């Protein structure tokens, strides 16, 4: 009964989305705000109805109603409660519903927040959002409904994919979707700007916080995905350049370019068309990512169950949105004469342009790598794999370039930089980089990428520190306060700038973590019996016990490894080799100990019936910097969003 209510609500929401589009069109035609009010009502109702749909599905999962096909496919009576909720987005149908639900939350919020200040934009916003909601709801209602019943009712569900039974996987999809969907708000405002011909800076200023928020969610979502892969997949890495990961990384790259590029338009009223282009590409890539993941175009050879009909529908829908967006851009923006005024090649404006170039080339690289097998196959060139070795080789120089620009950009003045200016800002950072590299070289580090990475990180980091300490000192002297108060004053007076710098510091920390944990990873795999020892790096691991354990929905062999540093016992690690009962899927559960900002990472990929365990030890130096960098980045973004409103606007 509950599930029918859910189904009914979602179907009504579909009808209302048509209604919303119609009232938006009428509002534009008659210039009567009452129609916009009707549209707002429709959008709000859609949000409520989709909420009901979500709740109905959550409820069915909680009571484990296996008469619902989707529930039967993605849960089990023994599935822990915590995961029954996340199982809602554990499959294709449910994740689509979550996508469109988040979209309805965001668009309803946006309409209510900007209702008073942006009355002319509202009909466009309502129309665009309703159109996107309509597209997704059609897909859900007609082609992949999570509300379908299953007859006869099975006694037991097939269980959620064991790999998804992980805390990080509970939050990963919602964060990712909030990122994708969040970009739909600036996208809608951009569409409104194009259709209404108000191509000024206002839409950018209004949506700045939305964009930043969406960017933060996408970043968090991607990092959570990496965190999940690290803990759950058990090979000790966090990023595999998998098509699914790439699908989320591409909008991130272009979104980041957009985030920077709009600053130029805000300050200098230039690159209007370019910014419209970037936000359209960002949102298009979010949609294309959804298409690539959901249609099975890029999945492996053995996805026997791909459904071209569903894929075709998503393609037509995504194609229409993208086609209309670019069509509007071409038709409306063609009239716009570009009035670029640049005083000097060495200016912040031009650094931003090169920043954009690097980000777009990075995105194009990921795009090319992801689609290359498809391109080759389409034109009869056989089947190839484009795996991590390719991306690592090609992406690294581009990333280094970006990091270097990151050190320069914020400290070059707008319009024109003088040579004295450059000397003052960059001589010490350049030296700092060289000193760091020399220090590392002395300690025996020879890897070229490690050295180059260290150089740009030290350079960029020093540039940030110098700028901030200089300004803080000035504030301290002016207020005749101590330097800490000076820092605080400098930060609060320029919160937008220094919050962004904090995010930059997060990026640097993250990069150090990535460099250390990928280039200086140590790995060892040995077969052990109880009583045997292995050594890895400075540590010794002794297998003291191997026994069976049982969880709610799995059985496992668990090894107990005592870890020694010299002769001191530092910890006991218990990796498991699990078999989930319902699906008989094996997983390797890693055991991790944090030490010196790095990890001792232990898995047991195989356990033979004779009691021989294959132990795989990995030392990941500084891996905590990867997650720590992510947290600092997020903190910077939150401070950016929460900055006081009045001060600079």
């Amino acid at each position, binding site marked *: 009964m509950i599930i029918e209510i859910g189904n009914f609500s979602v179907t009504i929401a579909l009808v209302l989305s048509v209604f919303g589009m119609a009232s938006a069109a009428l509002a534009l035609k008659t210039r009567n705000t009452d129609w916009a009010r009707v549209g707002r009502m429709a959008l709000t109702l859609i949000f409520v109805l989709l909420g009901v749909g979500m709740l109905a599905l959550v409820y069915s999962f909680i009571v484990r109603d296996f008469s619902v096909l989707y529930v039967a496919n993605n849960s089990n009576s023994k599935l822990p409660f915590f995961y029954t909720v996340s199982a809602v987005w554990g499959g294709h149908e449910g994740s689509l519903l979550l996508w469109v639900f988040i979209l309805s939350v965001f668009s309803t919020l946006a309409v209510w927040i900007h209702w008073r200040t942006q009355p002319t934009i509202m009909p466009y916003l309502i129309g665009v959002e309703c159109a996107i909601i309509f597209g997704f709801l059609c897909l859900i209602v007609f082609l992949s409904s999570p509300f379908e019943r299953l007859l006869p009712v099975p006694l037991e569900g097939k269980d959620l994919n064991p790999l998804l039974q992980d805390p990080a996987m509970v939050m990963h999809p919602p964060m990712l979707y909030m990122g994708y969907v969040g970009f739909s708000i600036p996208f809608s405002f951009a569409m409104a700007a194009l259709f209404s011909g108000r191509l000024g800076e206002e839409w950018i200023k209004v949506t700045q916080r939305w964009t930043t928020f969406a960017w933060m969610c996408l970043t968090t979502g991607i990092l959570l995905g990496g965190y999940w892969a690290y803990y759950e*997949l058990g090979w000790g*890495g966090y990023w*595999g*350049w998998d098509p*699914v990961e790439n699908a989320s990384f591409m909008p991130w790259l272009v979104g980041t370019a957009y985030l920077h590029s709009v600053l130029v338009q805000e300050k200098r009223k230039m690159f209007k068309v370019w910014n419209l282009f970037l936000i359209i590409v960002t949102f298009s890539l979010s949609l294309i990512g959804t298409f690539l993941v959901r249609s099975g175009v890029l999945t*492996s*050879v*053995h996805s026997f169950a791909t459904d071209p009909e569903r894929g075709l529908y998503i393609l037509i829908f995504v194609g229409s949105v993208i086609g209309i967006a670019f069509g509007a851009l071409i038709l409306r923006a063609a009239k716009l004469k570009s009035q*670029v*005024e*640049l*005083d000097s*090649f060495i200016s912040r404006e031009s650094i931003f*342009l*090169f920043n954009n*170039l*690097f980000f*777009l*080339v990075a995105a*194009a*690289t990921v795009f*090319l*790598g992801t689609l*290359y097998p498809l391109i*080759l196959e389409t034109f009869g060139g*056989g*089947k*190839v*794999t484009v*795996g*991590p*070795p*390719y991306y690592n*080789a*090609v992406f690294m120089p581009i990333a280094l370039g970006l990091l270097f620009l990151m050190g320069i950009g914020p400290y070059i003045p707008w319009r024109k930089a003088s040579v004295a200016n450059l000397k003052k800002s960059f001589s010490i950072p350049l030296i700092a980089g060289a000193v760091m590299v020399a220090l590392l070289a002395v300690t025996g580090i020879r890897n070229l990428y490690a050295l180059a990475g260290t150089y740009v990180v030290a350079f960029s980091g020093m540039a940030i520190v110098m700028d901030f300490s200089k*300004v803080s000192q*000035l*504030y301290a*002297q*002016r207020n005749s306060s101590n330097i800490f108060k000076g820092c605080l004053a400098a930060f609060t*007076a*320029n919160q937008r700038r220094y919050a962004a710098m904090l995010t930059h510091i997060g990026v640097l920390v993250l990069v150090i973590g990535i460099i250390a944990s990928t280039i200086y990873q140590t*790995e*060892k*795999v*040995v*077969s052990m019996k*109880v*009583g*045997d*020892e*292995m*050594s890895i790096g400075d540590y010794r691991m002794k297998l*003291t*016990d*191997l*026994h069976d354990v049982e969880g709610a929905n799995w059985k496992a062999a668990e090894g107990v490894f005592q870890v020694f540093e010299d002769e001191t016992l530092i910890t006991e690690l218990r990796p498991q080799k699990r078999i989930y009962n319902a699906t008989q899927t*094996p997983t390797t559960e890693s055991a991790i100990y944090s030490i010196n900002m790095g990890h001792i990472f232990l898995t047991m990929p195989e356990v033979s019936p004779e*009691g021989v365990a294959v132990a795989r030890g990995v030392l990941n130096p500084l891996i905590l910097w990867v997650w720590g960098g992510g947290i600092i980045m997020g903190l910077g973004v939150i401070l950016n969003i929460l900055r006081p409103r009045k001060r*600079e606007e």
Partner: protein
Amino acid sequence: MLMMIRLIVTALFILSTPWSGLAEVQDETLLDIQVREIAKTLRCTVCQTENIWESGAPLAQQMRGVVRDRLKLGHSPEDIKEYFLSRYGDYIMMQPPAHGVNWFLWAGPFVLLLGGGLFLYKEVIGWVRRTPASPTAPPPPLDEKARQRLEHELES
């Protein structure tokens, strides 16, 4: 169950005689390391872009076995790579070989970066040339202004 009992008995036995001759220090052999190096370059054909070293799929496990067996028989890493290429084609390698049409993939990003950079450089130079030197520059942005004011105050 039987296995469990056996394991417990073994464990108890070992625990009661802590430093008996049973305990051994296990280490990787050169062969293990070679297997790993090769396995990391081969794709698990039934997985999503995973190499056969990282994958837990049965096929990957068997392929690792094949690599090990062939190394034991004295095949060189090159021979083994050739063998897998002859069975599965380019698909088996984790990265496309850098020849023929694949140059498009390998060089593409750098061509884009260089071409884009050159184009951008020309554009920027052009824009700078077309921009009249403005004697009345509009006020610089706030953070700069604040700083300048501060510097001014300090100098005075």
